[in-house]
């Protein structure tokens, strides 16, 4: 199932009653994002490793499961490989370990926020956060809608690519990534058009 892998990239809400599920959004956000900033700022790989391990523990404690935690990191495999190779050669093992572990820890931690908060709550929070922008003529509701559309569209785009690859495979053609670009762009424009139509029809534009 390629599609579920694509879903893993951003994560979806997992219902539950853990302390993270129950704590207010602003507190969760401040603590988790604060941890992320700290991890990025402190350039010591043992700290990153500890944070990474902690994200696994918290994930298990909050009833999200270690498997879901591990799965959320899988889309990063390629990136992690390339990054570790580069930093290993360029900056030595300590720096490589720090960069890679920081990345994994930050993804693991932000995942906790996304999987324990329903998306509408996150969007509500974002809208509240953007409220001061109203003075500059920006409608915070629109910002929220745009972000949720983006979140919904990422798995759809992965689905398009895998669908095109399957269609080519069924015709025993092996397309180069470049050849997939044109149909993918056409499908995406069509999707955008239909999304716009649905937004208009639902009175949300």
């Amino acid at each position, binding site marked *: 199932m390629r599609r579920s892998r694509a*879903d893993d990239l951003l994560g979806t809400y997992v219902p539950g009653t853990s302390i993270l599920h129950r704590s207010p959004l602003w507190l969760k956000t401040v603590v988790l994002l604060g941890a992320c900033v700290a991890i990025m700022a402190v350039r010591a790989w043992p700290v990153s490793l500890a944070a990474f391990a902690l994200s696994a523990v918290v994930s298990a404690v909050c009833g999200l499961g270690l498997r879901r935690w591990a799965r959320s990191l899988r889309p990063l495999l390629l990136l992690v490989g390339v990054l570790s190779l580069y930093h290993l050669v360029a900056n030595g093992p300590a720096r490589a370990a720090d960069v890679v572990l920081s990345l994994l820890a930050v993804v693991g931690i932000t995942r906790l926020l996304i999987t324990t908060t329903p998306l*509408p709550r996150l969007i509500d929070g974002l809208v509240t956060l953007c409220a001061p922008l109203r003075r500059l003529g920006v409608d915070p509701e629109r910002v929220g809608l745009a972000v949720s559309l983006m979140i919904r569209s990422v798995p759809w785009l992965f689905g398009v690519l895998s669908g095109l690859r399957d269609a080519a495979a069924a015709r025993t053609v092996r397309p180069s990534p470049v050849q997939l670009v044109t149909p993918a762009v056409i499908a995406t424009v069509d999707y955008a058009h239909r*999304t716009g139509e649905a937004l*208009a029809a*639902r009175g949300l534009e």
Partner: protein
Amino acid sequence: MQPARRPGSSEPLYCADVTVTAEGPAGPVTVLDRVTCEFTAPRTAVVGLNGSGKSTLLRLFNGLVTPTSGVVLTGSVDPVAFPREARSLVGFVFTDPASQILMPTPLEDIELSLRRRVPDRVQRAEQALSWLRRMGLEHRAHHSVFDLSGGERQLVALAAVLAVEPRVLILDEPTTLLDLRNRLKLRELLDGLPQQQLVSTHDLDLAESAEHVVVVHEARILDQGPPELVLPRYRAWCAHGFPGETA
């Protein structure tokens, strides 16, 4: 046979001399050609071949398509001048629910519909969940829409449209992507709704359940009337050629 739908106060859907043209690669193409009609039945079915203009006709009534000439009225609202008002009057269900569902999970999508009318977060979630319950999809509330079956997605799309309580429901080939079981289920749900319905369809069983059937052919309304008269003619035309066609 079918449960009687409450006719309620009907919102006549009215077209006078409407022409719609679109830019094609070889000059303008006429999608609807001087169409005049008025739909007041509790359920009106629009049948016709692929590309005959059915979808365009449906989209006129919520302002998704603007006529090149002619007048459209949705109830007493002109959808060209007041698309927002027309769209709050009309709920529109698309053929492909995947493009209609805008949020990652069913519950979130229905909440999106409710954002404006229910400012309280808890109430909003409760109402959204009760809509899913009505559709028998409560257990799917937090699943990714990509994991739902086609039938479940269509029901979510319908729930999201019904949540804003429109007076009229317009459905563009709502059963085309569904299997027979889901088709029957959707029809049962539609039969129980108070809203006036305008449905384009290739599903002649669904068309048969309407009080009024309209045949659109080559951008014009070729025939209309009660299903028991119109549908046999439509079947014969499909098999042996439409009037004016050389077989």
